[in-house]
């Protein structure tokens, strides 16, 4: 007959060594530990009734250098206070996720109820809370042996507020306005968390550096933005309020919409694809908000910590991943601009809690792997948009440079085109330039819009044109513009955007009368030269110049047709060769410095 066994349950007996094992895993540094204290202070405010507005939830950090006899110390002060009962029921308990909320139905930052205590225990020689509330002072902390308890004679000690301030040694500090008065009038209590002889800290304490790093820490970032945190060094005011890092967003990416997390995400392992749920009756799927900084964060810059995705739980950050830690990312260069937050409530599902004790990274499981892969894919999508934008900017920059050369080419063309066409069409050569000043008035010119018919053009002063009085439309030189860059002189559109299928040189019907030509900067060859060699390369200039040659040939052929000349194959071929020769000879003389 089988033995029937029924266990009589007893409380666990845990050796303190377990705390060392867990504590060591925390691998605390101070910029990581201080946010734990700050979070505890915020939770103390959150528990208060009636609710205290954010801007009155004052927290003070005071860093004291080591003196001849006194060791260095860190303090974190809030203006709430705890009772001995709070300490017994919550503070003393290790690993109680309800410790921070004290059973209230309020969301608090405290997660597993360990962070602040472990920081005290592991990173200071001694540490304790001095807390005052309801006229009672309690001091509770860790001894040199890393064992906790109340300070002798300082458990539930009744004392007046002023005495409490004196005992806590904060009465003389530069505390926020009205907080001291509030304590003295019994309106509030206070808690000082004090760590003595911090690990790895030399005097003088580098407060600025420490606070800069701390405020960028994922666990502190949001709190720093919303709560007034004052910083003192040796009791003297350093910052009235820590200011969160403001990241300037990239224009055009200021308001990317939040991306909903799908209810189900695939997880692939060894070729098997499994569907992981991200929404249930109890948890909605959440979303991912990505932002794009104006400047890349870089790997080692001061703000490189912010190049990350924070994973948010019900309240606060439950993990944070630097972008380069998201192994599935492909758009690395663009990802250096991206940061964001992913709110995913199901990660805190007690049935499969994915939140680690130190809230640095998520617990590695199928759900978190599926989520991180999906996040990486979304980052890549934004990265692709940035890449597209960058390509656009590069193109614009190239076009700016091209426009400069385009102006030079237009000027060059205008200087010789009339003469060239006249020569090619077999007519008499026009006068060179302004024709000089005749006896009676100024000569006719080559100005495209001269109002009066000039004289014979001629060769100088002797044959200078007279001041004719017959209105005549002047010669209009074609204007060559760049698609997707030059403003439309006819005002039909802002500029003319052409596709890669449009001709290398393009005209709208309206452009013909106005003598406008557009060089199509979207043609595949144009784009390839741009991309590979840039707008200042001889290759691009050669391409650009050749389009001008095309236009001059077109103008010549059109003029031939207009003049009623026979457009047989032979005549066209001869004229094209004639034009090309003349254009090339002229270009060699006047554009050599740009083309060669």
């Amino acid at each position: 007959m089988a033995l029937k066994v029924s266990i009589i349950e007893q409380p666990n007996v845990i050796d303190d060594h377990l705390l060392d094992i867990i504590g060591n895993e925390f691998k605390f540094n101070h910029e990581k530990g201080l946010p734990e204290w700050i979070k505890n202070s915020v939770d103390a405010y959150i528990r208060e009734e009636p609710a205290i507005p954010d801007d009155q939830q004052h927290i003070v950090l005071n860093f004291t250098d080591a003196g001849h006899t006194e060791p260095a110390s860190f303090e974190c002060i809030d203006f709430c206070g705890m009772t001995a009962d709070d300490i017994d029921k919550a503070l003393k308990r290790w690993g109680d996720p309800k410790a921070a909320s004290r059973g209230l139905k309020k969301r608090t930052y405290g997660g597993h109820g360990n962070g602040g205590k472990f920081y005290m225990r592991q990173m200071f020689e001694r540490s304790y809370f001095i807390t005052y509330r309801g006229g009672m002072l309690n001091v509770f902390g860790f001894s040199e042996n890393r064992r906790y308890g109340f300070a002798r004679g300082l458990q539930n000690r009744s004392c007046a507020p002023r005495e409490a301030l004196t005992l806590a040694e904060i009465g003389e500090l530069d505390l926020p306005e009205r907080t001291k008065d509030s304590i003295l009038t019994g309106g509030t209590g206070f808690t000082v968390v004090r760590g003595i002889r911090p690990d790895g800290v030399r005097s003088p304490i580098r407060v600025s550096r420490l606070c800069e790093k701390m405020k960028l820490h994922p666990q502190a970032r949001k709190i720093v933005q919303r709560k007034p945190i004052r910083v003192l060094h040796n009791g003297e005011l350093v910052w009235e309020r820590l200011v969160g890092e403001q990241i300037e967003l990239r224009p055009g990416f200021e308001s990317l919409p939040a991306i909903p997390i799908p209810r189900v995400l695939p997880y692939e392992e060894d070729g098997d694809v499994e569907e992981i749920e991200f929404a249930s009756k109890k948890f909605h799927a959440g979303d991912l908000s990505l932002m794009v900084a104006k400047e890349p964060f870089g790997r080692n810059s001061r703000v490189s910590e912010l190049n990350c995705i924070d994973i948010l739980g019900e309240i606060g950050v439950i993990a944070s991943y630097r972008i380069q830690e998201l192994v599935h990312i492909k758009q690395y260069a663009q990802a250096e601009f991206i940061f964001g937050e992913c709110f995913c409530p199901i990660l805190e599902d007690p049935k499969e809690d994915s939140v680690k004790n130190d809230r640095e990274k998520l617990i590695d499981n199928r759900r978190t792997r599926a989520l991180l892969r999906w996040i990486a894919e979304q980052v890549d999508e934004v990265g692709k948009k940035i890449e597209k934008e960058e390509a656009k900017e590069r193109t614009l920059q190239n076009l700016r440079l091209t426009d400069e050369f385009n102006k030079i080419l237009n000027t060059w063309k205008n200087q010789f085109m009339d003469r060239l066409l006249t020569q090619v069409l077999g007519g008499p050569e026009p006068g060179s330039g302004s024709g000089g000043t005749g006896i009676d008035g100024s000569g006719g010119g080559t100005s495209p819009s001269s109002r009066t018919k000039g004289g014979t053009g001629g060769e100088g002063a002797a044959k200078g044109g007279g001041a004719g009085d017959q209105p005549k439309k002047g010669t209009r030189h074609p204007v060559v513009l760049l698609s997707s860059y030059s403003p439309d002189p006819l005002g039909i559109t802002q500029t003319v955007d052409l596709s890669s299928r449009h001709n290398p040189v393009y005209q709208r019907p309206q452009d013909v009368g106005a003598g406008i030509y557009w060089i199509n900067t979207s043609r595949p060859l144009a784009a390839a030269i741009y991309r590979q060699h840039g707008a200042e390369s001889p290759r691009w200039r050669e391409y650009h110049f050749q389009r001008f040659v095309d236009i001059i040939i077109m103008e010549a052929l059109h003029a031939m047709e207009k003049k009623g000349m026979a457009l047989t194959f032979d005549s066209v071929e001869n004229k094209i060769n004639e034009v090309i020769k003349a254009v090339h000879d002229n270009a060699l003389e006047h554009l050599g410095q740009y083309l060669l």
Partner: protein
Amino acid sequence: MSSQLSMAQKVLLSLYRLSDGGRRKVRYEDIVVQAFRDYASDFHLKGHPEFPDSGDIVHKPLYDYRKKGMVSASNKMFSLTSHGLAEVQRLQAIEGGRPPSARLGHRIERGAQIELERIKHLEGFKLFLANKQDEIIDSDLFEYLGVSVRTTRNDFIGRLETVKSALDEISDANPDDLSLVAVARFHQFMVERFADMIRLKTSSARSGNEEETRGT
């Protein structure tokens, strides 16, 4: 038999005779003289039967034919298009007292066939068949009609007319040919998609590249 022909048709035949049976360009003045020589009773100056009339009696038919895509005109020089040559064939048959349909059908169909083959090889048409209508651009319209942005209003109207009549002709002859149905659909698409452009090119308002001077 020539009495069966209209004055305009006679002008077209005179142009043909001057063109050596092809598409050579001919001066307006020469057409006036040729028409007078061919049909003196019709084209003499009023009250002076010994002198040719160089006015609208010759001028207007030429420009009307241009709008039908049968005549090209530039700088007071005129020439027949392939569509015009086909029409001449028809008129010659009438003038010669022969039934016009026999030779003429073959000739017109050939001209239309050439148009059809040209259209089938256009990139725009291929995109249309591939259901990539979004990629069809304004330049495709000009290629489709075999014109350019510089083409004058009447020549543009003429080409539009020529392409349309070629399609009608072939469609009537082969109503069940699926490739013709596709070309017809393409024509409809192009005309609708680029209605504004067509309006711009065919409107009487001058747009910079308008008619060369009509005065002769």
